[in-house]
């Protein structure tokens, strides 16, 4: 891999032992970024720094289980906080509905992959790639890269969405 000296310079600006963390709180798509210095309990430091209450769980993006410690060796992490250990996702499509529990850090994209699979609606290979998840009554689909927890405020644990095959490509949606 060829890299620029500048990239090395920018890396050198950071201490090797710092873990940089992006946190998205329940019900929000806005991220907070924080640098964590080495500590006996980095998660406790994170909770203190961002005023995350004890009953709020911390998930790594797209992972199933809440964190009890930071994954070893990681220098950059994207985390999602939520009081619910799991969100019940209800996907409606064609007078039918399927439910599944997802960790709040799971992305819309992962949920969509499940919804179109034979574990849920079993869309055929022509239809599946057109599918999006959309909040009832919304004009635009949920951003696939967003965490499900972004759409479920604290105190709630259910998310109802519609599966749509509307063609959103080329502005035709």
């Amino acid at each position, binding site marked *: *891999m*060829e*890299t*620029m*000296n*500048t*990239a090395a*310079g*920018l*890396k050198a600006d*950071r201490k090797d032992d710092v873990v*940089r*963390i*992006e946190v998205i709180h329940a019900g929000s798509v806005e*991220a907070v*970024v924080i640098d964590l210095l080495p500590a006996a309990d980095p998660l406790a430091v994170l909770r203190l720094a961002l005023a995350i209450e004890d009953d709020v769980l911390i998930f790594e*993006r*797209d992972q199933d289980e809440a964190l009890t410690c930071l994954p070893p060796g*990681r*220098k*950059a*992490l*994207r985390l999602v906080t939520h009081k619910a250990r799991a969100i019940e996702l209800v996907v409606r499509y064609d007078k039918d509905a399927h439910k599944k529990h997802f960790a709040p850090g799971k992305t819309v*994209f*992962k949920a969509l*992959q*499940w919804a*179109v*699979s034979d*574990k849920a609606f079993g869309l055929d*290979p*022509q239809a*599946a*790639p*057109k599918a999006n998840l959309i909040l009832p009554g919304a004009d*635009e689909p949920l*951003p*696939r*890269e967003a965490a499900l927890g972004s759409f479920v405020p604290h105190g709630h644990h259910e998310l109802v969405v519609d599966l749509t095959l509307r063609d*959103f*490509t*080329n*502005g*035709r*949606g």
Partner: protein
Amino acid sequence: MAAADLRPDALTLQRQLQGVAFQAGIEEGRWSVLLDAFPELIVQVVGRDFTGQVAAPMTYRLVCDGFPAQGPFVEAWDPVKAVRPPPLVLGPPSVVDALKHWEKDSSPGVYGGIYRAWQRYAAAHNGWAAKRPDEVWHRDRDITFIMEKLYGLASEQAAWRALRPAA
């Protein structure tokens, strides 16, 4: 070259490449940088199906001059031959459509890049940017926005392959 000597567009891109979201994507195995030679950036993205068992690596070339005011030009890339590969034939309709050959507006014969609203030249095509502001690039976005879209294409390809073990 020191960071202070860089052009503003190169410096902004480098800062984003070193940012949390982009670096986390590398650590998660979603993407890697094969070549970083501003304004050119070649990345490999590894998409996965829902089970995570089927992977689809795809390589892309980004041209990032004018970043971030101007979004990257993005095309599929063959890193061995250092050329854009032929349009994808075996894949889901959405990925085939994104990687098809089309020509940018007012430039007959000039390939327009990945056919999605977030891509530099496609954004201006058919007023796409105005119709899908949620999908279009703007200067407040991060390069990871593009990477997530590329990861999505690769994952759609992986899901398609999972249904066709022989493909």
